[in-house]
């Protein structure tokens, strides 16, 4: 598997994990009301978006490299 594909796969997995963590933390916040979970939920969702943006950037940039 070419390394570009591997990296994209990996970042996608990390992005999905970020979304999952956001969902989990959101659910935990809903159940317990602790502010800490809200931080995690927002933080993971934010990281997920950043990763998503990164993967698009990476894909575009890698078009140039063999």
């Amino acid at each position, binding site marked *: *598997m070419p*390394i570009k594909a*591997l*990296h994209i796969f*990996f*970042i996608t*997995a*990390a992005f999905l*994990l970020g979304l*999952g*963590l956001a969902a*989990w933390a959101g659910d935990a916040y809903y159940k317990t009301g602790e502010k800490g979970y809200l931080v*995690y939920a927002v*933080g*993971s969702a934010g*990281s997920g978006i950043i*990763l998503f943006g*990164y993967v698009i950037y*990476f894909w575009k*940039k*890698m078009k140039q*490299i*063999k």
Partner: protein
Amino acid sequence: MEIPYTVTPRRETGLYNGKLGIWLFLASEVMLFGALFSSYVLLRVGAEAWPSRMLSLPLGVLNTAILVTSSVLVVMGWTALKLRQFERFKLFQGLTLLCAVVFLGIKSVEYRQKFNHYEVWLTDKGLEEFKAAHPDHEKWLKPPGVIPGKHSLTGHLADGRSFYDHRKMRANGDKEVVLTPDSIKPAGGEHAHPIRLAAAQIQRLSAYVPAHSSYFAIYFTLTGLHALHVIGGILVMAYLWGPGSRMWKSEPERFTNRIECSVVYWHFVDFIWLIVFPLFYLL
């Protein structure tokens, strides 16, 4: 005597030797970690009680972020090398190594936190005596967990030591154990003074070590094996960053291929962590 296809790919397969080699190695690693994940599933499904929220979520999330960042950095290093920017490569590779070392540092902090954190199960008689002596016991007494039907107390020993257990207690002839208990949120506050437990009241005392429960056994095994793989990756990447980078001058393509193989490996190690993290920190 030249081994063919160390650098130029073989047309039929489109691969150079090292790349095929590392992917085969990863196939075997998938079987290795797969066996451990399957064991996790079997142990968890067969267990009467499976602890949750036992690990530090902030540290786990931090470690995850560090590893994902390191994967991004290591690819940036490889890209720089492909663009023949050797100094940028050195920078990114160095940052990757830094992330990896910090990951291990945080992991060892987490491990140490577990080794001096204890769970005590009292005998039935001991439990009665404890309840009698501490009217506010609901603040400290945890509901039954890994030992069915038995309540427990958790906390730290007053002298802060690690790796103590009831066998050592009996072997040394210690008469009592002084525990600074954890309070059960949200009811408890700070306990005014440590709880004294007589040796006779204690059925089982264990730190959060592999011997504590199946949960910790598989936790330490999986994260320990993962950490060993991180160390392996650090050794290889450090070699390629340091003495190994001399190959850039003599055979740049072969060196780039070596970096590519190490990047593939590093992604795999990171991917394993992406599975380990939810299994232990979230679920």
